[in-house]
């Protein structure tokens, strides 16, 4: 997996598949402790304790267990390669919580990637899920949730024409403002409407 934006997008797919109605994602770029941390939690159906121990070691097993998947093992591996940590907790029928950290200036830390696409797409293509995104840097904080957006839109729905572009623009503007690490900056809105 190339970057953190793709990892986040991937891990959130697990929460969607677990039928979560609330998904929280917090990113903290902490220059003081030299740490990039990502926390993802959901209220989906959870993982049974027996299975929880295995979700991250699938990478080392052979094809038969491939069913267990690659998403979490790859994320854990990337965290450990950059001197970070991976932790997951889950309660059956309550939800799942995971935190992954990376040493901020470690050479092997994957770049943040295109967070505008990750969050823009997650929010606009899953309108039935309340996605709660917060992002903190030394320069400030940004919070956005599906609920905030639907409240602002009134009777316009998230998947109506034009809305997607505006939401991405909003995310891009605010990430820029707090100098968050991200690839794509949408400064051109000339073809929005």
């Amino acid at each position, binding site marked *: 997996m190339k970057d953190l934006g*793709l990892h986040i997008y*991937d891990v959130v797919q697990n929460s969607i598949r677990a039928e979560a109605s609330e998904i929280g994602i917090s990113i903290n770029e902490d220059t003081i402790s030299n740490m990039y941390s990502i926390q993802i939690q959901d209220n989906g159906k959870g993982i049974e304790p027996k299975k929880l121990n295995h979700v991250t070691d699938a990478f080392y097993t052979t094809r038969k267990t491939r069913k267990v*998947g690659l998403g979490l093992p*790859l994320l854990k591996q990337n965290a450990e390669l950059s001197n970070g940590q991976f932790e997951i907790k889950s309660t059956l029928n309550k939800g799942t919580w995971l935190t992954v950290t990376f040493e901020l200036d470690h050479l092997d830390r994957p770049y943040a990637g295109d967070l505008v696409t990750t969050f823009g797409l997650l929010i606009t*293509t899953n309108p039935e899920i309340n996605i709660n995104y917060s992002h903190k840097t030394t320069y400030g904080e940004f919070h956005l949730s599906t609920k905030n957006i639907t409240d602002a839109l009134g009777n316009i729905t998230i998947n*109506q024409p034009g809305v997607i572009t*505006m939401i991405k623009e909003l995310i891009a503007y605010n990430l820029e403002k707090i100098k968050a690490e991200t690839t794509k900056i949408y400064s051109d809105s000339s073809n929005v*409407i």
Partner: protein
Amino acid sequence: MTRVKNLDDLRKMRDQLQSKTNLRDKSEKPEDMVQIKVAMATCCIASGSRDTMNFFVDELEKRNIEAIVTQTGCMGYCYAEPTVEVTVPEKEPIIFGNVDTPKADEIIEKYIKGGEMVDGIIPVNYQKID
């Protein structure tokens, strides 16, 4: 055009959004719309399916085609990721493999808009594996 910087700006855009919506013939029924499902397992995402999905969402909106774009589980064609299932109203679903951005553009222009066949169809006995 002003830039949407916060939720207040978004609120102010409501009227414009409303009028843009009204320009379209609105069909409420999903079966009247183009449906696109993008396979979204880890291996798909690593091979570019997030950006393929993003392209479909952005471009269908820009080209004024009413569509529902969703993610789905692994379709089992790992050799041909990103894979995408496209259903045009009144036609059978078709699965395309190796759908990068240029391929997605071709699918929109030729298959969805033009009704022509394009390369890259995965022949099915299609069974959904989720």
